[in-house]
């Protein structure tokens, strides 16, 4: 059907709309792509949480004034007066946490499936941008209740920004609209959270889904581990024909399953919102810093690293390295191509390998111990032990050992990073108390 001709009747319009809608999805989906274990539907679940956020967010906007102290009073109104206000706010909060968690999981899953390989590099970059936008959405929304937690979490974050060289202080001033977190900061964060970042995210999601379609739909590797590319982008005519091959099904099947996943997630989130009320502290008091002043949970890992390194290193250098690392993953195939087995071949003799590994482990461990970063030692040792195991395995052995041998260097780097992130975030959230001292959470 040609573009831009007059549409003669409503049914034609509906058909045209359906046509455009379907372009978001690849026309054909293989049987093997339908199952849960491929992607765990994580992309769809993330989109689902975003939808929940937008709808609950719009409802919350009806009650919220971004001013001091009216914003906090509005939190009280939501809790005590608005029908289902507690549920609305709690749902918004837990969905926010879920969205951050799911977007990280989605990124990890995509990585481990190697779904960033050509032609999907741009989509990966868009995805990492979405990750950053999600984190920024969460950070800006954190301030809006204007309680102690919000105020000090934002203050800690802004002070990290100011540790950037040359531009740090000015950047902080632009972000906050002042020298401290005050009424201007609240208004700016409100605009960022309700207007700017949601629009950015919606545009990025559109690009993300379009690229998904353009790149041939869900990633599926062949026997060599290379992606199966579509032989052609389906012609428009094909879209209106039925399914051709009994082994290929229409997109509806996949969409259906993803919707079930989204609904199940919604059930979980709604139940969480009913059982656990979103916390609200006292009204923000600039004169009283709670001890400890913790950042939101997705930044506590960073705060834990801040405990060991100066703010410039932990707050600027490290995140910049991590984010750049994430962005360039599709563009450095070298790390993908090198497997553990290849690494082992660099050092021929077994004893040589042992010495190399032992040296690496001792040096890195010593560095970590020197700065008393005990919690960061564990993932390092796990990875090193696995590498040792791989190193001592002869080629062609079956089972777990062979699997370890065949993992690429990028796998080890990402796994180490993810394990460190999990452990440091857990430590920062649960095991740190007043003055960032070690506490056992069951005793605290």
């Amino acid at each position, binding site marked *: 059907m040609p573009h831009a001709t007059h549409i003669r009747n409503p049914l034609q319009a509906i058909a045209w709309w359906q046509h455009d809608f379907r372009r978001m999805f690849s026309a054909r989906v293989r049987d093997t792509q339908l199952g849960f274990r491929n992607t765990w539907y994580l992309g769809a679940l993330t989109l689902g949480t975003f939808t929940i956020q937008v709808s609950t967010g719009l409802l919350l906007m009806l009650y919220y004034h971004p001013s001091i*102290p009216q914003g906090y*009073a509005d939190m*009280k*109104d939501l*809790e*005590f*007066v608005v*029908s*289902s206000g*507690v*549920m609305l706010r709690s749902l918004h909060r837990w969905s926010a946490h879920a969205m951050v968690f799911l977007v990280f999981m989605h990124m990890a899953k995509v990585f481990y499936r190697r779904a960033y390989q050509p032609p999907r590099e741009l989509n990966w970059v868009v995805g990492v941008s979405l990750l950053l936008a999600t984190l920024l959405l969460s950070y800006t929304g954190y301030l809006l209740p204007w*309680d102690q937690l919000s105020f000090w979490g934002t203050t800690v974050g802004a002070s990290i920004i100011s540790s950037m060289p040359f531009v740090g202080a000015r950047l902080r001033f632009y972000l906050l609209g002042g020298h401290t977190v005050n009424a201007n900061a609240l208004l700016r964060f409100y605009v960022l959270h309700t207007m700017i970042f949601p629009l950015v995210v919606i545009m990025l999601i559109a690009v993300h889904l379009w690229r998904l379609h353009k790149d041939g739909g869900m990633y599926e590797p062949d026997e060599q581990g290379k992606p199966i590319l579509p032989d052609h982008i389906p012609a428009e005519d094909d879209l209106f024909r039925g399914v051709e091959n009994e082994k290929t099904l229409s997109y509806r*099947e996949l969409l*259906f*399953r993803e*919707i*079930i996943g989204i*609904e*199940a997630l*919604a*059930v979980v989130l*709604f*139940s969480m*919102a*009913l059982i656990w009320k979103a*916390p*609200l*502290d*006292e009204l923000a*008091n600039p004169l*009283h810093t709670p001890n400890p002043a913790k950042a939101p949970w997705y930044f506590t890992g960073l705060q834990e690293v801040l405990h060991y390194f100066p703010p410039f290193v932990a707050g600027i250098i490290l995140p910049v390295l991590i984010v750049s690392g994430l962005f360039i993953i599709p563009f450095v195939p070298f790390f993908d191509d090198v497997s553990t087995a290849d690494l082992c071949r660099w050092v021929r003799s077994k004893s040589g390998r042992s010495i190399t590994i032992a040296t690496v482990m001792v040096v890195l461990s010593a560095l970590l111990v020197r700065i008393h970063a005990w919690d960061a030692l564990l993932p390092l040792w796990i990875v090193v032990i696995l590498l040792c195991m791989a190193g001592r395995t002869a080629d062609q052995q079956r089972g777990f050992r062979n699997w370890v041998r065949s993992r690429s260097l990028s796998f080890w780097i990402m796994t180490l990073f993810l394990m460190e992130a999990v452990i440091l975030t857990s430590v920062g959230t649960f095991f740190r108390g007043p003055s960032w001292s070690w506490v056992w959470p069951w005793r605290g």
Partner: protein
Amino acid sequence: MSLGNQFGRVWRFFVGTAPRRFASVSVLLAIVSAIAPTKDFFSEWRHYQKEYLHLIRTRPDAGRLQRRFESGVHQIWIPEQRVVDRCTTCHVALQEASLSDVRKEPFRQHPSMPHSLTEFGCVVCHHGQGAATTVQEAHYSTKAWEQPILPARYLESSCGQCHMDALEGTPQLNLGRRLLARYGCAHCHAITQPDGTLVAPVDEPPSLEHIAEKTTREWIFAWTKNPQAYAASATMPNYRFSDPEAADIASFLVAQSTPSENSAKELPKSVASLPGSDTVQEGTSLYGTLFCASCHAIQNAAGNLVGGEMAPELTRAGNKVNPDWLRRWLRAPQGYDPKTRMPRYRFDEKQTALLSSFLLSKKDDDLLANVHLPASDAESIARGKKLVNDYGCVACHRINGINPPESFAPDLSRIGSKPLFQVGFLRGMPETLPDYIAGKIHDPRAFGPALKMPNFSLTDGQVEALTTALLAQTDRAVTMPPELVRSSPHPKYHPGGDAGRLMEDLRCQSCHAINGNGGDMAPDLTFEGSAVNRAWLLDFMKNPNTLRPALIRRMPKFNLSDAEIKGLSDYMLSAYQASGFDSQALDLTALNSDAATRGKQLFYSKYACQSCHIADYKKDKGYVGPVLAGVGDRLTPVWMYRWLKNPNALLPGTPMPNFSLSDDEARDLTAFLATLKEHKKGGLK
């Protein structure tokens, strides 16, 4: 079919195919979404509103109450004051007069109160979280709101956030504020009141600059160790010094003492120069006739304090004072302490000698019996100086060589809003702000060994009153817009000229209030010039008698010269005038004997004035107001007339009622009172 198989079938029924999974999950989602709106129907406040409807069903005016009731969340909303109080959602019947007999919470009518519910809301008086609609969040200290409901016994503190005057409905608050001023809290702690001024202490700790002339090291030691052992009514607190510390302080204070102005003057004669008289008996009766008990108290044999509390207790003065110092002091108090409130009585030599011997006989031999101090050396003095510095003695007493400290103790202007994270509680005490304040006042040192606040030995009632006064010092009080603060202005008044100097010398304002300044022990002299006749005033100043015989307070006889009396009286008569007291105010020719007869009738029959005033010593016994037997000599007719018409206008707060007399009645009564004269011989003209 086995259980496993059956379960498998059921499972497959619900989630076998994708459409079934979709259906099951959608139903589950629908159920979960419906829970939150349903929960709204079971809110806590709806339960209380239902209970209220149940309660009023059986009452006689059920129909009217039910019509007045609206279900839903209620709130008192005053945007200008940022008041959002939803207490009336559960406390539905606060304004229902017919429910005054209900005692069940939360359905009671609010007891009578000075402000209406919609004027200021609830939280401004009762604290708590006004925006909440659950019991826990509204009444108790929670994570999101620290301030719980104020206990009923401290409720008057909320009045004190705006009101600075002593109100009738706030006896606890008034007492607490008086105690704050009287016990010298304001010497160390700065307390800013709602109108921006600081609380001014009314106790006058004596200067220690010349202390060595007055007393001994041993006495200072005993006093510092336990002030109340010397004088039970002393407001000086107990610092719990150890023996060596007290000895060091005594050494230092004696060492820093400089000679006073009095010390250079000639020493008045002692009682030894009066042989042949029963000095003890004469001294005791002189003390009595001079009415020193108006200001000073002495414990009698039964242990009761007899006398006023304006001046130091003299029960054991003989243990304390140096005899030479005492005689010099009685002759010229301002020569030792220029700021003292004690007047210069102009005693003659004999009076000085007798009085001092009487006071020196007031001794307790046990007080200093076991005090044996080592010799004072430079180290002891240095340690004493350090102690005096550390414990802030100079915040109250003037001491040579040490400057008054700035903010020696924490500022209490906002103590009523102190966040609990700044408070260290004792183990086992309830963790609320009022308990903290009360506990701190009751026993400060229990909160930490290094704390310097001394122990004030106050009764429970006094502690409660002080806590009430301090709880009134909230953030809201200190930031109150000036137009909402209720306080009467108290301008300072000092009389000027020669008469003024004489009044300073005589310390008239220690007892009399003039233009709102001064003591309240004696009549207010603001309009005295309009009130009294010149002849009477001259006579009175020469020989003060009393208008109220049953009181132990008396105006002293100052042995003034005739010229001084004339000058002072003329000043008062011209300066202390009320407005509208000119000759046109009353037609004096109308005060004839007919009017006097009618007035007598009114006095005794219609208004029964004799129930409170004595007009004739032989007949009348009423003793509430001043004796009127000589009132014709004392008061001017115009004053009497104006006073009878409206006493409160001339002396605000007088117990004399306003009888709403007509002009004629007032004139007749004035005529009668003007005939009440006591015939006296002589006197000044």
